[in-house]
C-alpha cells in the first residue's frame, strides 16, 4: 500500500494530482446536479406548502437516482432533418465550460486545481460559450420553438453580459488582480473586509452585488429569466427536440452553471474560504472549504428561492431591466469606484 502511495506521490505526483482533481470535479458537478434538482423540487414544494418528492427512498433521497435511470433508459433520438453534428455537440458544449471553470475556482487556499493568474478572465470568457451552445442546440434542432428560444437566449445573454462584466471590472479595479485566490486573500480578517461590505471603497457595493446576482440568474437562464426553456410558452425552448440524456446533460449543465456562478459570487463578494471571524485558523485548509461551501449553498438556495417566488418576466421587461436600469447603474458604480480610488491622489495633488 505504502509502495503504491510512494509511487503515486513521487515523480508521478503531477499526474496523480491531475487525475484526482479531474475525478473530483466531475464527481462534484454530478453530485451537485443530482442533488440540487432534488433541493429545487423540495424547495419548490416547501414554498408551495407541499412536501415535494418523498416516495423514492427515505424522504425522497433516492429521487435523483430514479430520475437518472429514467433518463438513461430513454432512447437518444436524433430528429430527421436536423444538423447532426451541431445537435450532438450542443450538450457537450454546454457541459464543458462549467467543468473547466471549476479548475480555477479555489475552494480552499490550497484546494484549487490550477491556481492561474487570470482565473477571473478564464471563468468569464468560458461563461459566454454557454450561450453559444444553447443557440446551436436550438438552431440545429430544426424546430420553430427551439429557434425562437435560441434567438431569445442570444439577445438576453448579450444584454446581461454587459452589466455583469461592468461589475466585474469594478471589482477588478478594487482588487487589482485576476488571481481568484489572491482576491480572496485580500478579503481576509473578518467579514467586514469582504467586498460586499467594503462600502468605503465604493458606497454602492451591495448594489453591485445585486446587479451581479441578477445578471448571474440571467446568464444561467434561471427563472425569472428562463427564456431558454420557457416551458409554459415554448414547449421546452431550445431543448424541445432533445430527449433522454441529451436533455439530461442540458439539465445538469444548468445546475453546474449555477454552482459556478454562485462560486464566483462567493469569491468576488463574500470572501471565498475566509471565515467571517478574524482568526487565521478558521480559514485554514481544514475549515476554509467548509466556509466556501456554506456560502456557496446559501447563494444556491437563494437562486432556488428566487425561482419559486417570481413569475417569468416578459421579454421586453427583461431587456428593459438590463438596458435601462442595470447597465446605467453598473456604469455609475464603475465611475464612482474610480472616483473614490483616485480621490486621495487628487487631494494630494491639490493640497
Amino acid at each position: 500500500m505504502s509502495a503504491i502511495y510512494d509511487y503515486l506521490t513521487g515523480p508521478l505526483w503531477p499526474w496523480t494530482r491531475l487525475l484526482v482533481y479531474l475525478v473530483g470535479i466531475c464527481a462534484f458537478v454530478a453530485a451537485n446536479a443530482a442533488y440540487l434538482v432534488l433541493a429545487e423540487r423540495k424547495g419548490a414544494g416547501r414554498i408551495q406548502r407541499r412536501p415535494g418528492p418523498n416516495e423514492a427512498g427515505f424522504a425522497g433521497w433516492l429521487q435523483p437516482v430514479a430520475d437518472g435511470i429514467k433518463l438513461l433508459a430513454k432512447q437518444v433520438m436524433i430528429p430527421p432533418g436536423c444538423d447532426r453534428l451541431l445537435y450532438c455537440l450542443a450538450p457537450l458544449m454546454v457541459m464543458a465550460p462549467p467543468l473547466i471553470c471549476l479548475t480555477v475556482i479555489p475552494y480552499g487556499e490550497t484546494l484549487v486545481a490550477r491556481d492561474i493568474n487570470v482565473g477571473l478572465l478564464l471563468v468569464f470568457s468560458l461563461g459566454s460559450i454557454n450561450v453559444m451552445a444553447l443557440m446551436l442546440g436550438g438552431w440545429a434542432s430544426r424546430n420553430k420553438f427551439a429557434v425562437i428560444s435560441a434567438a431569445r437566449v442570444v439577445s438576453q445573454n448579450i444584454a446581461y453580459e454587459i452589466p455583469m462584466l461592468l461589475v466585474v471590472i469594478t471589482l477588478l479595479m478594487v482588487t487589482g488582480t485576476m488571481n481568484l485566490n489572491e482576491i480572496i486573500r485580500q478579503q481576509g480578517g473578518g467579514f467586514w473586509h469582504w467586498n460586499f461590505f467594503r462600502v468605503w471603497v465604493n458606497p454602492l457595493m451591495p448594489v453591485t452585488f445585486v446587479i451581479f446576482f441578477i445578471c448571474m440568474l440571467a446568464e444561467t437562464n434561471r427563472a425569472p429569466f428562463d427564456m431558454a426553456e420557457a416551458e409554459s410558452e415554448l414547449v421546452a425552448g431550445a431543448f424541445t427536440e432533445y430527449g433522454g440524456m441529451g436533455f439530461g446533460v442540458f439539465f445538469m449543465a444548468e445546475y453546474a452553471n449555477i454552482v459556478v456562478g454562485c462560486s464566483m459570487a462567493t469569491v468576488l463578494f463574500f470572501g471565498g474560504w475566509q471565515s467571517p471571524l478574524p482568526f487565521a485558523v478558521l480559514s485554514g485548509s481544514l475549515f476554509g472549504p467548509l466556509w466556501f461551501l456554506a456560502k456557496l449553498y446559501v447563494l444556491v438556495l437563494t437562486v432556488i428561492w428566487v425561482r419559486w417566488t417570481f413569475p417569468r418576466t416578459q421579454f421586453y421587461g427583461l431587456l428593459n431591466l438590463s438596458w435601462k436600469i442595470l447597465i446605467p447603474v453598473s456604469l455609475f458604480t464603475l465611475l464612482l469606484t474610480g472616483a473614490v480610488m483616485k480621490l486621495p491622489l487628487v487631494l494630494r495633488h491639490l493640497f
Partner: protein
Amino acid sequence: MKAAFQEIYGGFMSLLTGMRITLGQAFKPTITVQYPRQTLKMPDRFRGHIQLVLDPETGKSRCTACKLCERACPSDCIAVDGAKLEGQKTKSVTDYHLNFTTCSLCGSCIEACPFDAIEFSKDYNVVSFSRDAFNHMDLVERLGARSKAWAQNRPPAPPAVPAPATTPPPPEAPKTS
C-alpha cells in the same frame, strides 16, 4: 429623474417583499394529504350513495320496509323488501337494493323516510372496473358489515346492577350480546 429612482427603489422593495412572503410560507407546515395513506373527513353535507342508518342502540336498521323511499325515488333505483320477523311488532328490512348507476343523489328518499332509516354515506371511493358493482348495491349486506364492526367496538355493557346483599343472586346473569 426622481420618479425613475423611486420606481427602481419601489420595484426592488416589492421584490424583497415577495421573497419574504415565500420564505415565510416555506417554514409553515405542509398541507398535503398523503392520499392513499391519509384521507380527508368528508363534510356533513357530502352526498355519497345512500346507506341504511345503523341504530346505535340496537346495532340494526330502523327500516320497516314501508317502501316510501321506493315510491319517492324519481329514478326508480330503489328496491325494498321486508318481512315480519318472529317476535317483532313491525316489519324489518330484508332486502334493500340500490341501483347507483341511475341514482342522481337527489335525496328524495331520505326526505321521504319517516324513520330516519337512510342517510347519505361519506364513501367517495366508489370505483370499479365494471358496472355490476353498482347495479345492485345490497345495502342490507353493507349494513351487516358495519353492524359487525359496531358489535366489536361498542363499549362493554355496563355491569349489571349488583343485587342487594340480602337477596340471593339471580340464577342466571342477564345475557349481554
